[in-house]
């Protein structure tokens, strides 16, 4: 009798078709099976198709001669080089335009985001018009617009527009002066690096001393003096070799200075203006996310405006800003692939030429994807590290 009751009370094992564990395993096996079968089906089809079309798969083609020329290359390249070299040219071009784009878009976006919060009505409205306009027009359309403006509507070099002294905009691109090479610059860079390291050390020491004794040290001013002053001293020590390499009209084109091709200029401008409008909104949202009470508390503690911004508002705003900013940076890198539409030789553009010449579509596309995935992972890794540095430290 008692044994029977215990038997009834003891929970019965459900039948296997009702056991969540068994069901889970069955579902997963089914799901993986379907995915694998689909993959197998696609791979089989691809192999048959490739065999039928006599396309040899594999990455052997990378060692063959590319035999096409590339308009702009940061590393030495000639059509006699291999496809692999051409890929490297494309990769460096992509990284170059993405890096410049990220820097300038961050500057423009931050300025515009702050302008949208300005107490000045006119500035606020101008920034709003900028953000709303460029956010709502496709990037590709903007690229075509700038490119058409530079290629088609801009004058020939003889009648070039001159928005700033010695900066020329013509249908050959944008030409601007750069300082002429001089040994002084290498030493100045060294002095700058030295100053930066020294001021970092001083800052650390000042912080430790303030924590210990409460006495402050003007580490900001000293650091600024070191970082600006040391290179300046070196510069003067070399006799101030300030000779600019100014572009000059010679014949039908400019010589001297540094030039951005119309394609590069249009791509960079488009990326910066488009992404800047998104970054402006991110910055604005980040600063608005810090409640006004924080600022009031800072003022009650007697912090100056700069200290309030630096010590109280920004550290909290960055926490909100960093994650969406990461995806914007990734977006700039990925959007630089639109270069293929206006003929700037970025990675996708060169891979496209290669695929057309060799027919190695699968290899080409998988190489592009691998590169972008690697870049995405690297950027998110760095931004995650940075995010961890600014994130809220919770107990």
């Amino acid at each position, binding site marked *: 009798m008692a044994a029977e009751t215990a038997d009834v009370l003891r929970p019965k094992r459900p039948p296997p078709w009702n056991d969540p564990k068994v069901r889970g395993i069955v579902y997963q096996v089914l*799901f993986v099976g379907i995915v694998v079968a689909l993959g197998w089906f696609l791979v089989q089809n*691809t192999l048959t198709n490739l065999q039928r079309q006599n396309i040899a798969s594999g990455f052997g083609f990378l060692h063959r001669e590319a035999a096409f020329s590339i308009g702009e290359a940061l590393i030495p390249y000639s059509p006699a080089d291999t496809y692999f070299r051409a890929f490297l040219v494309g990769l460096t071009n992509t990284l170059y335009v993405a890096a410049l784009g990220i820097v300038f878009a961050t500057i423009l976006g931050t300025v515009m985001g702050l302008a949208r919060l300005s107490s000045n009505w006119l*500035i606020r409205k101008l920034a709003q018009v900028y953000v709303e306009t460029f956010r*709502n027009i*496709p990037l590709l359309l903007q690229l*075509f*617009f700038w490119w*058409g*403006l530079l290629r088609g509507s801009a004058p020939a070099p003889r009648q070039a527009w001159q928005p700033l002294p010695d900066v020329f905009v013509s249908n050959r691109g944008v030409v601007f002066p750069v300082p002429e090479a001089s040994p002084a610059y290498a030493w100045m860079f060294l002095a700058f690096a030295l100053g930066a390291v020294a001021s970092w050390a001083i800052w650390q020491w000042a912080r430790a001393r303030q924590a210990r004794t409460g006495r402050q040290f003007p580490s900001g001013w000293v650091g600024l003096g070191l970082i600006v002053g040391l290179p300046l001293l070196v510069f003067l020590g070399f006799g101030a070799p300030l000779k600019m390499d100014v572009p000059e009209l010679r014949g039908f084109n400019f010589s001297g200075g540094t030039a951005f091709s119309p394609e590069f200029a249009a791509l960079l401008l488009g990326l910066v203006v488009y992404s800047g409008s998104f970054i402006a909104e991110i910055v604005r949202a980040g600063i608005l996310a810090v409640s006004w009470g924080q600022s009031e508390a800072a003022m009650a503690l007697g912090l100056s405006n700069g200290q309030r911004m630096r010590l109280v508002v920004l550290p909290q705003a960055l926490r909100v800003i960093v994650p969406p900013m990461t995806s914007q940076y990734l977006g700039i890198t990925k959007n630089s*692939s639109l270069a293929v539409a206006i003929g700037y030789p970025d990675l996708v553009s060169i891979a496209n030429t290669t695929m057309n010449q060799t027919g190695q579509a699968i290899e080409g596309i998988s190489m592009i994807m691998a590169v972008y995935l690697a870049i995405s992972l690297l950027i998110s890794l760095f931004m995650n590290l940075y995010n961890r540095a600014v994130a809220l430290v919770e107990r």
Partner: protein
Amino acid sequence: MVDIAEELPLVPERPPPRTHGVVAWLKANLFNSVFNTILTLLALYFLAMAIPAAIRWAFVDAIWSAPNGQACHGDGACWAFVGEKLRFILFGRFPYAEQWRPLVVVLLFIGMIVTSCDHRMWGPRLALVWVGGLAIVGVLMWGGILGLSYVDTMLWSGLPLTLILASVGMAFAFPLGVMLALGRRSKLPAVRAICVAYIELIRGVPLITVLFMASVMLPLFLPSGMTIDKLLRAQVAIILFTAAYLAEVVRGGLQAIPKGQIEAADALGLGYWQRTRLIVLPQALAMVIPPLVNSFISTFKDTSLVIIIGLFDLLGTVNGALTDSAWQGFSAEAYIFAAAIYFCFCFFMSRYSQMLEREFNRGRAR
């Protein structure tokens, strides 16, 4: 008794600063500090330079009608070019005599988008509206029945193509995105791993590569003899791409559901699918409507990339119009016109999404 008031030197008391009126507004909003005054003056200078020049270019000196491109080159814009090419830009290579069909399609889409903005329509009824609407769109574009002549998809172009790619892309990507988001939150490790891999893979690469893959690699993937139309390939690429982004949006909503809701559903004895369908999704999806509208805006803008694989959407027809040798050098006018169309759609939707966000936050804001 000394009158204190007479002892003290009389300081004439200044009236308090004005808080109303134009002068006070200017002082408070434009000239409230030295820095702001400088900024205001700079901005005014910029506007004084830019606005008259822009108005002169776009209106005063503009040429509104011209027989050909040569006669249209002046100091101002050549809007005659846009007038001449208007039907090509909007409807592209669709047979000229049949272009009322894409026109109706565009109006239908605008009607459906406006209908979707109405709260009272949200729910199964809206899905019905879209299914019915898309069916009518299909009949009008393809033809071949009801006395309409058949039009090949390669001739579909212009604004209707942009709207179709974006709307169909969103409509099919949405269920896929929900499934991916649920998969990513699943307790089954294999399902979760595959969903995470898919989402991160697609989000890590540019849309162009997915479009290339669809246009170049998809034919290799299929058994020989089986071909898919180019438009459908681009559409599949857009769906697969959008789904990964939607999955992340939906995941945001899923993560915001309090655990108690799920426990309550379990306590009621609901199974996984019942719980998801009746308790989790209705709350999660309602929460993410504003970001979903934003996703729709980016999909709408992203469809312009299909010109890279040779389809003629709105941007493609603009580029096509620019190749006419009789009308050379009017790219600025053409792109500004196309930009205005894109802007109207995107600006309207982003305003709508901001309004929704405010409305949704009303309950939470103090």
